[in-house]
């Protein structure tokens, strides 16, 4: 079975079978590539993220085409040539927040571990995140690095100097209780 289908089932089952879910459909994830030639940044304001507060599991899904670039041509190249959005429309993270139920402060740093899937390639990842657990809200924010080469993304030689080998990803996910 296709991985996105599995994740979707996971997300849906989370919603059907438990009360202790926190969710956002308006999460923010951006990525940034710095090179001597140019800086490239893209923002996605439509990230779906679900936290199961019983287990500390987290599921994140986003659409590649929801990344907004400053230049139309960059967006076109990203979707059509590099990420191949028509073939791999989504990126997903299936993971957990380490020691979620042992958190001893409202405001602290946690580690998120899981499997990140981009461009159809699955890869283990880990990221540190700032977590804020408030009444009716769980905020997760932070940054992590992604190696372009890990995800079998083919950047043509002619623009290789325009795109960093390591991409910085920034996330800000503000979850609310799922009713």
């Amino acid at each position: 079975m296709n991985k996105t289908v599995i994740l979707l089932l996971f997300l849906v089952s989370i919603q059907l079978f438990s009360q202790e879910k926190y969710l956002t459909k308006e999460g923010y994830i951006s990525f940034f590539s710095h090179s001597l030639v140019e800086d490239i940044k893209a923002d996605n304001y439509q990230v779906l993220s679900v936290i199961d507060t019983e287990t500390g599991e987290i599921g994140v899904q986003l659409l590649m085409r929801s990344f907004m670039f400053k230049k139309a041509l960059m967006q076109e190249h990203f979707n059509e040539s590099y990420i191949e959005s028509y073939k791999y429309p989504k990126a997903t993270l299936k993971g957990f927040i380490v020691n979620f139920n042992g958190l001893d402060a409202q405001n602290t740093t946690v580690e998120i571990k899981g499997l990140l899937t981009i461009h159809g390639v699955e890869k283990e990842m880990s990221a540190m995140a700032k977590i804020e657990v408030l009444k009716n809200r769980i905020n997760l924010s932070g940054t992590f690095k992604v190696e372009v080469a890990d995800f079998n993304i083919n950047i043509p030689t002619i623009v290789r100097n325009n795109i960093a080998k390591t991409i910085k990803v920034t996330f800000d996910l503000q979850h609310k209780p799922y009713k």
Partner: protein
Amino acid sequence: MLKLYNKPFIDIKNSRPEIEVTVENILFEFKSNEKLATEKYVDKLILVKGKIAAISISKGHSIITLKDKNGISSVICQMLAEDNLNALKLEKGDEILIKGVCTGYLLDIMMVRCVLINNNFKDE
């Protein structure tokens, strides 16, 4: 070359939508066959008609959520900044037309670069 590099985004306001559809129908199509619906709608400029379930603002973008009658899934429309103020004039329950680019389906259908169609406004 520089002209190509600086090529602008499609002018949503002045472009004709490729497909016109109701919230009910597009949700039905994505739920029954996501692959087919993706081929039909994704990366296309479409016009969607539906009732507003929510209006919110996130990081300077207004977001209008259109729901079908069953109310589980929705079409989430990220508005272009130029329509932020107009979005705030609308109310929950209003039936509106939104034009924008469909980016796909998670638990909901996602649209970006959306604009309102003028006849949304009763007082105009």
